[in-house]
């Protein structure tokens, strides 16, 4: 279970361009498998997901995963949690050009010290599950948009995280690829993963797999209800 207590995030504190992206949020995410954070650009969705995923620290408030308070953890401990608990799918994908899809997927697991052979086998199984085996040795710049998206999903899954975080995952996809993406998310949710999506794409938040929709505006939660 993920819970947030009084979480705020202010950028450029004390400067003329000071901006508070998230304002005193209290939130609990319990047993829901797929949760969507819905709201317009600038509503604080990405910042909130960054805080939940240990990519950023709040300016005030605490974040708990289970019983453990994680927002105060020093970076050396936070890295372990970020690597082991969360998988990230970024809006811009952030895949590394010049190396193969397989190398991109294996990269986040290198710091774990896992044997290369085992790691490669694990990556190949994920490629198989995502129906992407034929592109395993292709360089990133050779992939289509949908293939690159699936490589990004594979990379997020390499450390077998309990929670998958995707920020505007369908922003650059056409309708068919967006539906394919949601199908993959549905499969992962059935496998037991918790999926947190930030999106203002109706195709995402009207999807049947969504169990909870949290609406945000101006850094605050304005609505909190079940999915369609």
């Amino acid at each position: 279970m993920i819970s947030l207590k009084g979480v705020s995030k202010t950028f450029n504190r004390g400067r003329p361009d000071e901006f508070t992206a998230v304002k005193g949020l209290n939130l609990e995410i319990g047993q829901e498998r797929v949760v969507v954070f819905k709201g317009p650009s600038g509503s604080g969705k990405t910042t909130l997901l960054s805080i939940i995923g240990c990519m950023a620290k709040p300016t005030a408030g605490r974040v708990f995963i289970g019983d453990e308070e994680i927002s105060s953890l020093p970076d050396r401990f936070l890295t372990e949690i970020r690597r082991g608990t969360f998988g990230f799918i970024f809006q811009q994908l952030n895949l590394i050009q010049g190396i193969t899809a397989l190398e991109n997927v294996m990269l986040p697991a290198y710091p774990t010290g896992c044997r290369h052979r085992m790691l490669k086998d694990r990556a190949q199984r994920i490629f198989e599950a995502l129906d992407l085996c034929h592109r395993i040795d292709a360089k990133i710049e050779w992939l289509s948009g949908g293939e690159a998206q699936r490589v990004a999903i594979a990379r997020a899954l390499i450390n077998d995280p309990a929670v998958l975080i995707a920020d505007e995952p369908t922003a650059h996809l056409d309708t068919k690829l967006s539906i394919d993406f949601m199908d993959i998310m549905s499969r992962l949710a059935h496998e037991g993963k918790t999926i947190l999506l930030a999106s203002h794409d109706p195709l995402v938040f009207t999807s049947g797999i969504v169990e909870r929709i949290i609406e945000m505006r101006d850094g605050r939660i304005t609505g909190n209800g079940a999915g369609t």
Partner: protein
Amino acid sequence: MILHPAVIALVIGSALVCLMILTASFFACRIAASWDPQSGSEKQIGLEKKTYLVSMLVAYAFGFQILSFFLFIYTADDLHGLFAGAMCGAGTLNVNRYGYPSLTVKAAAFILAGLWLIMNHADSLGRDYPLTRAKYLFLLLLAPLVLADVFFEGAFFVNLKADVITSCCGSLFSSGETASKGSLSAVADLPVGPLKCAFYGSGLLTLVSGTLFLLGFRRLGVFFSASSSAFFMASAAAFVSFLCLYFYELPTHHCPFCILQGDYHSIGYLLYGALFGGAVSGLGVGLLAPFGRVKSLAASLPPLQKRLSAMSLILYFIFIAIVAWQMLHTDFVLDP
């Protein structure tokens, strides 16, 4: 003031250390006043974010503080040729009244800075900043010592005048000359018999308690720490009193500085490094003992204490081995 490169390095280094410690002390006051890990307030989170940076700053400052002890005695030794009458660092330190106080403060700062670094390392092993408040309170206690170090060192170097006639170590550290000497050199006149008992006795206690602690008798941690510090003091006194005689092969020369010179292969640096390092590691075991019940350190503290005790034993062994080798391989006989 003599503009020797090492003097300039020490003065600038000490000034920077002082600046860093004063800055960190200001932060330590905020920690002492407002630290509350249960709170999610902006102030608390700000302190948590800054503590890593400030700790790093202090760690570097204390790292230099430890090295500066050796640089200081090297400088004192290197400058002795400039002063009429000085034969080694002992004479240089006697040029004005700030020399020996500066050395004493530096030795104390060496040990306490080492202990702070151990505490800082232990704190970094816990997930919830378990020793943060304690280590910053400790820092507040150390800050006056750092200031005193800067004062005495600065006063010593500023008042170094090349036309001063000073005393050589032969008169400062010779037996039976106590009337003209200070407390450090008076050690040379301590009765050898009881000092030998203290040296060998505390050494044996340190070895036994340290070995038992390594084997799993955790309750002996504080005892080991105490015996380790007793051995450090006994060794320092024994070195001036009778151990150094085997190196100099002179029955009346008790100088702890000549051994730093090339004539003795600069073995003094290794001896003092091992002795001080052993003391800091040994004291570190006892320093961490009260925090053994802290939940977030329960798994990581015992291995750290074991490593410290092993390091202490190894460093003391190096000290004893060098001294024993010299005692066994010299024709010099102390007792007829």
